[in-house]
């Protein structure tokens, strides 16, 4: 009996291993094509109300007057950026005089879908979705379209399948953010120097996109050398540890690019500990308040590319959609470069992010 069961265990394990490894090979090609960045500026207007609806567009219910109720499905609410999105959405809803219902997907695509279904059941006039679930959220998008409710996608991955229905997609262009950082560094170094790049979680979409923008752009400058390229997992502590090692291995570093500010702070700590703050400058991304304070008050942290967390535009688009106004299908939010020259224009001590 014992032997028999054991052999069953072994064969099952083997079968699982075979099934899994046999199929693993083809898994990569389909997931790689996630980003087709829209070229800067604005895209073509949606065909809603127009004559020939383009792929992905659909007819939705509008309301010329009366109260507006908008649902906001947030993917997760344990990260400052995502919380700031929700807070700003509440604020602009109050300003626009509309009712806002916020749901929290708790990082689980099933909960996100459930929430969106509940919003449909609640008969909201428009739904704003901020998702991190890639393609797994698409069925929910389709349900929103079937219910003829205008769908605004905010700060999520770009739907890469043209049959995925939505009314407008609002986000900063992460690729462009990477490009801007590269151009800024080149200018600052007069096209010559040694730089360190610290990525976020390497497989995350945003890290991939920022890298896609940054690397080809920086490689255009032959005399700028990337002496180290490592991951800091989006967090302060790992970035500090990684930077400590990099500092030991490299005598000459001019600039560190951290893919977000949190990692930038970690890198700066490491640089300070090594006593090399005169030599090395740090550049971050996201432009969170703490980073802006460092830019304003110090000399080390020189620049951060803003990543828009405000949901203002998304909500205004939702309201416009409900009122039947024509709407742009792709809205690229501004991602300005913030350094000492323009810090006062962007620094707000009362900002939530």
């Amino acid at each position, binding site marked *: 009996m*014992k032997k028999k*069961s*054991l052999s*069953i*265990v072994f064969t*099952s*394990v083997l*079968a*699982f291993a075979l*099934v*899994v490894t*046999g*199929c*693993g090979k*083809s*898994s*990569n090609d*389909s*997931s790689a094509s996630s980003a087709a960045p829209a070229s800067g500026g604005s895209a073509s207007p949606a065909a809603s109300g127009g004559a020939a609806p383009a792929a992905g567009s659909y007819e939705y219910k509008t309301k010329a007057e009366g109260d507006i109720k908008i*649902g906001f499905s*947030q*993917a*997760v*609410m*344990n*990260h400052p950026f995502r919380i700031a999105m929700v807070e700003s959405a509440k604020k602009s809803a109050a300003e626009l005089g509309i009712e806002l*219902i*916020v*749901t*929290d997907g*708790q*990082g*689980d*695509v*099933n*909960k996100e*879908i*459930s*929430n969106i*279904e*509940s*919003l*449909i*059941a*609640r*008969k909201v006039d428009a739904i704003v979705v901020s998702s*991190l*679930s*890639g*393609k*797994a*959220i*698409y*069925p929910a998008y389709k349900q929103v379209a079937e219910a003829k409710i205008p769908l605004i996608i905010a700060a999520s991955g770009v739907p890469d399948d043209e049959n995925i229905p939505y009314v407008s997609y609002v986000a900063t262009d992460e690729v462009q953010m990477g490009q801007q950082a590269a151009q800024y560094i080149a200018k600052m170094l007069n096209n010559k120097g040694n730089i360190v790049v610290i990525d976020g*979680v390497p*497989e995350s979409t945003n890290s991939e996109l920022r890298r896609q923008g940054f690397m080809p752009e920086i490689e255009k400058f032959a005399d700028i050398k990337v002496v180290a390229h490592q991951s800091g997992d989006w967090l302060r502590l790992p970035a500090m540890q990684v930077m400590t090692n990099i500092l030991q291995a490299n005598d000459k570093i001019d600039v560190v690019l951290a893919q977000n500010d949190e990692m930038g702070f970690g890198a700066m700590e490491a640089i300070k500990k090594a006593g090399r703050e005169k030599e090395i400058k740090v550049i971050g991304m996201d432009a969170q308040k703490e980073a802006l304070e460092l830019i304003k008050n110090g000399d080390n942290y020189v620049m951060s590319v803003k990543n828009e967390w405000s949901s203002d535009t998304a909500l205004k688009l939702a309201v416009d959609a409900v009122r039947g106004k024509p709407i742009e299908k792709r809205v690229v939010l501004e991602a300005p470069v913030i350094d000492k020259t323009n810090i006062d224009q962007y620094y707000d001590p009362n900002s939530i992010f």
Partner: protein
Amino acid sequence: MELKLGWRNRLGFMIKSHQEESLLTLLIVIIIAISPIFSPDFFTEYNLYNLLRQISYTAIVSIGMLLTILIGGIDLSVGSIMQAVGLSSILLIQNDMPVWLVVIVVLLIGMALGLINGSLIVYGLLQPFIVTLGTKIIIDGSTLVISDGKGVSGNAPDSFLEIGAGHVGSVPIPVIIMFVLIFLGSVVLNRTVFGRQIYAVGSNQLAAHNSGIHVKKIQLLVYMLSGLFAAIAGLLVAARTGAFQPITVGGGAGGMELNAIAAVVVGGASLAGGKGTIGGAFLGALLSGLLFNLLVFLDLNPYIQQFVLGAIVLAAVIFSASKRRKR
């Protein structure tokens, strides 16, 4: 005299012998009954089926979890098995395997993983908590390695998506599967020798062994079934979304084991084993799903659901404990 119990008495007896279930039912009925006060859109056919579909995954996993808890064990790997099965089914679909074969293969994978858990526990004489925690982490790691940590989407054929998104009449297929499994599970637990043996093993392993029950076989089967139920839920989720998404922030199906344990405990089961029903586990899952769904209609702070759910779990445990003390 006792043979001539009227329906009133019989109902009274049922309520007495299933106090937790009766209380839960009452609570759920009250919530649903007063829901129109908050929002007229809550009690609609659309939302009812939404709600049932939303809880179907947890409810199905809870059946397997209940079995392991009944024999005094636990299975922390169910969420990870769901993820592994989700990934496997999407990969197999990408490789143009026929849908019926995918279903069979991934259910076998679930059972195989359950069997590994069971074998380690039974033959390695190890604690179920530690074993399934270990296999959970291994399975999580494997899915991340295989998927490269990225989402995978197959161009799934409609026949596959139909499993997760389809309807019979107006009832979603996952809901039908859930009710069928609840019915079958209840019949097996209450009306068969195997079911009695599960309760016996959980109440007193030694006594069960001495009375001729093959304890090890029961344990192995229970962990296999737990893997199977997790696999069914994983398959339904994969078919619902048509894509595999790795757990992003420690939530996701990664929290499924805790949801299932909560459902089972709220449903009146004891972690010491030997006590609990599938009906109770279903009601537990229904209550937490109801709260989650209702949040959107009440405009409550999303964070509050976890608070309420935790309070209900504690209340359930306190209720059971106070009953024990009275005895």
